């Protein structure tokens, strides 16, 4: 049995009385794992605590916090989820001051599954498991090395399978806009599959994930037709690093490039699509 489960269980048990809930994963019927808020009133549920497969916990913590803004919460997070929450904090989607981070370090096997360059947490004070180094992403390198026509042919083929389920957007913790451009018929055609111009959906989304994607790969995992979508975001992340010296979710007090031109202060929504 994975030693991390025991260690994590002990940490959660310890902090459970001090918080309103600890968000983690729980095994349900048929061995299906899902996010779950462990609470002090039901400590016995910890027996079903799980750590894999990972789930989009940053979205869930946001959901809970929006309904309970004053709640003291803790969340079990992997490197990608920690980056996700940091980025959501910067975009005023989460109040990290009310959230205790419990950093779960990924194993070599998990990191390779996600082709992850940073399978470790950096902000969490409490740590479970041993941090390991990042692994290579051969798939992204393969696409990056292609010629322009090869890339075009590759993505045309991949996009032709898209059934427009919007799963990649729905699962994404960083997709929190009130008004989504992908639901605007000006940009994305409705009523036809395959889409007449699928790159409108996928490339609009890729642009919108600039300096937001934290490489959690949930989008790829939920894609019913297996499009390796995260490759876009990872290649764009390289550009963002190069142009703005910005790494998504890495440094809490570094402003994201999208917000650089704004002055400090409160902003009201314009109501326009953004």
């Amino acid at each position, binding site marked *: 049995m994975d030693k991390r489960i025991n260690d994590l269980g002990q940490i959660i048990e310890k902090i459970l009385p001090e918080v309103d809930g600890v968000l983690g994963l729980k095994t*349900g019927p048929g061995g*299906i794992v899902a996010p779950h808020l462990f609470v002090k009133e039901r400590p016995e549920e910890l027996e079903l605590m799980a750590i894999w497969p990972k789930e989009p916990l940053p979205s869930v913590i946001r959901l809970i916090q929006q*309904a*309970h803004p004053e709640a003291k919460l803790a969340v079990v997070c992997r490197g990608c989820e920690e980056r996700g929450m940091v980025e959501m904090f910067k975009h005023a989607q989460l109040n990290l001051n009310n959230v205790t981070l419990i950093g779960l370090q990924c194993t070599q096997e998990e990191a390779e599954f996600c082709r992850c360059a940073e399978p470790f947490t950096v902000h969490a004070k409490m740590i479970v498991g041993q941090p390991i180094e990042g692994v290579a992403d051969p798939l992204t390198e393969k696409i990056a090395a292609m010629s322009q026509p090869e890339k075009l042919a590759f993505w045309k083929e991949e996009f032709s399978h898209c059934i*427009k*389920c919007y*799963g990649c957007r729905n699962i994404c913790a960083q997709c929190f806009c009130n008004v989504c451009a992908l639901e605007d018929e000006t940009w994305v055609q409705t009523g036809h599959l395959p889409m007449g111009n699928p790159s409108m959906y996928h490339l609009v989304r890729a642009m919108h994930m600039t300096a937001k994607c934290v490489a959690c790969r949930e989008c790829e995992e939920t894609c019913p*037709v297996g499009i390796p979508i995260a490759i876009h975001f990872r290649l764009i992340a390289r550009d963002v690093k190069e142009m703005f010296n910005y790494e998504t979710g890495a440094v809490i007090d570094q402003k994201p490039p999208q917000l650089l031109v704004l002055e400090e202060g409160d902003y009201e929504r314009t109501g326009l699509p953004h």
Partner: protein
Amino acid sequence: MIEYKNILTTCPYCGTGCAFNLQTLDGRIVGVLPAKKHVISEGGLCIKGWNAHDFVYHKDRLTRPLIRKDGQLAGSSWEEALTLVAGKFSQIKAESGPDSIGFLSSAKCTNEENYIVQKFARAVIGTNNVDHCARL
């Protein structure tokens, strides 16, 4: 106490049998999460599955039976509605025979519910007129 949990269920739309988790917060359904490692859907969903929770609290959702009286739909009790339906079935069967009645069931029902529909058609009404909602 804050209560956030997920309830595993089967998608109500087509007959594929995809599974997802209904996210519930303080007793209300707030979203859908695909079920990774599920043997059928393997963590994926189509657009209908992703939005399968939307109708639950929809204002247009029927919460009680309606009976058309004088051309207008009016709310009624289950007792009154079921009595009316049973009475009409008996009347039509007596007047025009069992084969004047047909049953259209649905992929949105479970296997067991569909079984009951065909059993009711054959054993109670006495007809083999059983088909699928896609023929409607």
